[in-house]
């Protein structure tokens, strides 16, 4: 009953007009950027981050979340109609979605994708509502050693599915940690790496790093590629309703995708990217005629779309109940909350119940908005894909510049952003993982703080981590995150070298 009353409280928060407005703004923006190639949720959220500082924490979080899961819906539209995944999580959708569209079933494919996303999202929201507080109850007994171990696990887990070598991944994390130490050390008051520059005393602005490394790097990469040639299949968008035979095929796939996505989304690291691939593979294995996959199988759209949206929702669980971001987007959300003076953790549910339940209820509302936005209005989004990049680019750059400027109303952050664009480019050239860098940057301060407290708890002995079973388990898990990809990286040495040569050629 406690759950019902909390949810009711959440809905009353979500239905406040300001929150409804920001939810709508978020999901519309999310759909737009999902549809537009070259602008993803990372760019958009990092760009809008400074503008949310003046909003309260609840509307800010609701809007940023809307952008994030809205992009999962939008990404599917270009995947189906143009064979071009708007987001990394909709790559799998292109396999069967585009085939369906080519065979004249674009409407069905869009409908399946939107309905699957809705089903996946709605179930996953239930998982958050139910699972989040439970996880928090376990975590409430955590002390500094447990938090240190947990954060280490969170940071290292992005190594597991990183594209490049493990060493580059670790280097990215180390650089992120290093950047987080710039400025005045909160414990001793000594200035580190600031060299007397007053603007650096408070540390390097997170917004400058995030926009430079994520946003502007993506823009540079888009500029280096030739513009896409594919024209969207727009002629035949009809049949947005599913027949009962199609329902029978799609529904089980949706539910399996939802279950898998909800599970993988909670895992830190690359669970979100993994979810659609894994559920596609499972559907293909379970199918009586696997040969239809890749030829326009309806399950091949339903399962990954349900799965990626479910994972997008449940990846909020570690953030809200432990304060540990599961991926780079969640790291941005965490920083948005920290600016508002909220450090999410096991007590979020008791100290900020309106925020937690309001966010959950708004996600439901947002998913309803999205299915309305996506199905009847799909034609509008398709036309949007034809926006020339020439007009889009100046708007993006202006928002980045003004965004960075507005953090402290100073040009210093604008210059820092330019520096990090170059840094991001250099790191990308050597295949250094930047998502690990950003995660490590956000968690760097708390990591150092918890390490310091843990060591003084153990009176200078690292044995404090060994004596506490939860901390030890988490540390073992964290070291596995480093060891497993290292071992994996030793085997297919020749394949990797060949692969990197071919990527150089195509770049």
């Amino acid at each position, binding site marked *: 009953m406690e759950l019902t009353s909390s949810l009711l409280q959440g809905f009353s928060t979500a239905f406040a007009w300001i929150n409804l407005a920001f939810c709508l703004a978020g999901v519309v923006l999310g759909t737009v950027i999902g549809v537009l190639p070259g602008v993803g949720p990372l760019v958009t959220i990092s760009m809008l981050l400074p503008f949310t500082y003046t909003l309260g924490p609840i509307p800010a979080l609701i809007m940023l979340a809307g952008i994030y899961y809205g992009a999962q819906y939008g990404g599917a539209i270009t995947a189906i109609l143009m064979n071009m995944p708007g987001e990394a999580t909709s790559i799998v959708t292109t396999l069967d979605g585009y085939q369906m569209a080519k065979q004249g079933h674009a409407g069905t494919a869009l409908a399946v994708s939107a309905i699957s996303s809705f089903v996946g999202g709605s179930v996953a929201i239930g998982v958050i509502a139910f699972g989040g507080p439970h996880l928090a109850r376990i975590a409430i007994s955590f002390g500094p050693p447990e938090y240190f171990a947990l954060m280490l696990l969170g940071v290292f887990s992005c190594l597991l599915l990183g594209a490049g070598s493990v*060493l580059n991944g670790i280097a990215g994390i180390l650089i992120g940690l290093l950047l987080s130490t710039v400025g005045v050390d909160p414990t001793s008051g000594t200035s580190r790496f600031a060299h007397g520059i007053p603007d650096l005393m408070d540390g390097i602005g997170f917004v400058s790093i995030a926009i430079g490394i994520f946003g502007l790097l993506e823009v540079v990469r888009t500029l280096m590629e030739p513009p896409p040639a594919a024209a969207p299949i727009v002629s035949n968008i009809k049949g947005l309703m599913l027949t009962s035979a199609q329902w029978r095929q799609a529904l089980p796939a949706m539910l399996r995708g939802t279950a898998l996505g909800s599970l993988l989304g909670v895992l830190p690291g690359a669970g979100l990217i993994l979810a659609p691939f894994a559920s596609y593979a499972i559907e293909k294995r379970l199918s009586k005629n696997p040969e239809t996959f890749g030829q326009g199988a309806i399950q091949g759209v339903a399962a990954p779309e349900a799965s990626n949206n479910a994972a997008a929702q449940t990846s909020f669980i570690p953030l809200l109940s432990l304060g540990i971001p599961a991926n780079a987007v969640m790291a941005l959300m965490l920083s948005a909350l920290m600016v508002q003076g909220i450090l999410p953790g096991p007590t979020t549910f008791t100290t900020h119940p309106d925020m937690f339940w309001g966010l959950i209820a708004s996600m439901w509302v947002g998913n309803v908005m999205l299915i309305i936005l996506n199905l009847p209005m799909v034609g509008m989004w398709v036309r949007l894909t034809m926006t020339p990049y020439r007009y889009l680019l100046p*708007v993006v750059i202006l928002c980045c510049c003004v965004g960075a400027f507005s953090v402290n109303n100073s040009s210093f952050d604008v210059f820092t952003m330019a520096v990090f664009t170059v840094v991001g480019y250099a790191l990308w050239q050597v295949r250094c993982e930047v998502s690990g860098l950003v995660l490590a940057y956000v968690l760097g301060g708390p990591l150092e703080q918890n390490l310091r407290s843990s060591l003084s708890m153990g009176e200078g002995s690292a044995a404090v981590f060994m004596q506490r079973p939860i901390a030890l388990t988490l540390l073992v898990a964290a070291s596995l995150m480093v060891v497993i990809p290292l071992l994996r990286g030793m085997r297919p040495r020749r394949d990797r*070298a060949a692969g990197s040569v071919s990527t150089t050629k195509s770049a």
Partner: protein
Amino acid sequence: MLMVNRDRLAGLIYLGVAAAGLWSAWDLPRGTLNAIGSGFVPKVVLVLLGCIGAIKLLTSCFGDAGKVQLRLPRGLVLLVLAIVSFGLLVERAGLVLAIIVMAVFVDLAGNHSPKGGRPLIFIIVGLLAFSVVVFSHLLGIPLELLPKWN
């Protein structure tokens, strides 16, 4: 064109950062394990980064990680110019000038042709209108439109 082994470049970058960082952090107190000083975490991180750099540099002699061009692409240079000129102009010369210069650089950065012309004027006017409505009025960011004469 100057090409360099990708792993070698990575190694050099990591070693360079580590060396510069250690030089800068040299005087920071390491403290004791019981009460770690402000230099403890940075130094540990820098030493680890240096080790990774050294490993990368060594392995680059054996494996072939592909080659990278040692040059910044045109788009990146022009974008950075756009951003830096915006930063330089916005506080003193006002938003109007900052946007005009930025938009010209951004237009040059794009891979469309022909550049400039009427679309650029349209873009600049659009950006100005957008900034005044959204940034100044809706968000209340203190941005001067015109140069300050004092």
